[in-house]
């Protein structure tokens, strides 16, 4: 039932990092797999379409 959690606890974190890049560097320093996202705020149109997507996808 909580397979996703068990996988996390069993395998240890394999992370996607959004935000402070230091968090990704710290994970890397600990030998964890991590991919840092070069994130930027979504353009206003993405927000505007969000609601539409909920109906269509």
């Amino acid at each position, binding site marked *: 039932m909580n397979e996703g959690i068990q996988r996390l606890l069993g395998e240890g*974190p394999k992370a996607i990092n959004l935000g402070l890049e230091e968090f990704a560097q710290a994970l890397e320093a600990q030998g964890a*797999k991590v991919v840092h996202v070069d994130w930027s705020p979504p353009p206003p149109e993405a927000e505007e379409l969000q609601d539409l997507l909920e109906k269509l996808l």
Partner: protein
Amino acid sequence: MFRAVQIQKRRYFDSMFLMRVTQHLQAEPGVKEAAVVMGTPANVQILLNLGFPAADLAEVGPDDLVIAVAAEDEVAAGKALAKVEEFLSGRREGAIQAPKTLAQALARLPEANIAVISLPGHHAGREAHKALDAGLNVFLFSSNVPLEEETALKKKAREKGLLLMGPDCGTAIIAGIGLGFANVVRRGPIGLIAASGTGAQEFTSLIHRAGAGISHAIGTGSRDFSDKVGGLTALAALEALETDPATEVLVLLGKPPGENTLQRLAERLRHAQKPVIACFLGVISEAIKKKWPGKLVSLIDDAVAAALSTLGLPVPEFLRPENLEELAERERQKLTPRQRFVRGIFSGGTFCYQAQLFFHTARVPFKSNAPLLPEHELPNPFQSEGHTLLDMGDEFFTQGRLHPMIDPTLRRERILKEAEDPEVSVLLLDFVLGYNASPDPVGNLLPAIRAAQEKKRKNGEHLVVVASVCGTEADPQDYKKQVEKLEEAGVLVFSTQAQAVRFVLTLLGGGR
């Protein structure tokens, strides 16, 4: 302009690959024009158009590699030519373009099992939704995510069998790997579920220093125990750690839960499959203590001791309250009659909170910018009054700045300011080590501490500096080295924060 042409017979490379090599060569210092091409008639024509001498190109065939460089002088051309082999080896390039979205990152790391999110609150919630939809657990460091969104996220996580740690989750350790602010601790049989980040850091560090270890430390986010959220993450974590083979004993740590949540947790713990120790940092009524189905304590040190005892492990010396009166009396002698106030300047919210609890229990009046009870409210956070216990990580101070665990500026300024006050006798400090904290938390504040001591000395006063260091010798900053630095400066360092506060109260004459 110096032009050089090299022809390498019957050496083939793909044309597009050579375009990239050409690009590198063009970027070399002093190079005006460069071409690394196969010697086809079309390419030879290009080289002629670029002004390379026809004589140099007369013998070229389509299976030959041609390296042509026009540079400002012979030396530059020679240096550039010498690099061609390196470019041809292709090893120079290795960078993968950083993904721009969660989905792109997931394509890069399909086996990912968690998203670590520290974006501004408004965006953080949406990305957390996306992460859950993609089957990822979430460590949500961001604060100011609206309550309704927190509840929605946690319900979604429950439906999907995933863990949502946060929002406002500072610390977690999963299978030995720290997320956010976390210390390097040994793995072991103790599982932690914590609503408080620094609380989790202090607990896990003390467990490590006691020789035991942590299976997982799961953060729930600061509001999880409130009735509005209802302990959704705590309950999910409880279930996970109960089935987790690495965990033998569980500790639940945080401020006292809301009434309904307390009830829910109590009911759930009645059928707990492993021993659970609850540590609620706060005033707990006798009624609750009676009803609670298991060990219930209200100090981090006691939780550590209880976990160790449950596992049949000895409780180390440093966790036992020592008789501090002798040391306190020695320090008391050095103070002037006017010096009577304590100023606690904390980077860890839980440390400020735990200090207030001690003061409150000892009936010593105090003020705080993050007050335990409304009556403790400090009207102006920049101006201390009487005994003052400051949470420098509070939003009031961190607006537009890094957390004081990373950026020491505000704490440094505050230490100097408090030293000006002739009524101040004691500075009570915390230092938090571990990943993502400052690389040298003690070093950051030492100059300010020394300056404060000096200031007091000049005024014919004495300054008692009391500190605790949260961390382990395995941390990048090394617990032992940090403590040594403090002790060299005459700072009284206690092995736990609770001990440090206890000493301060002893000094104040309560002896409690």
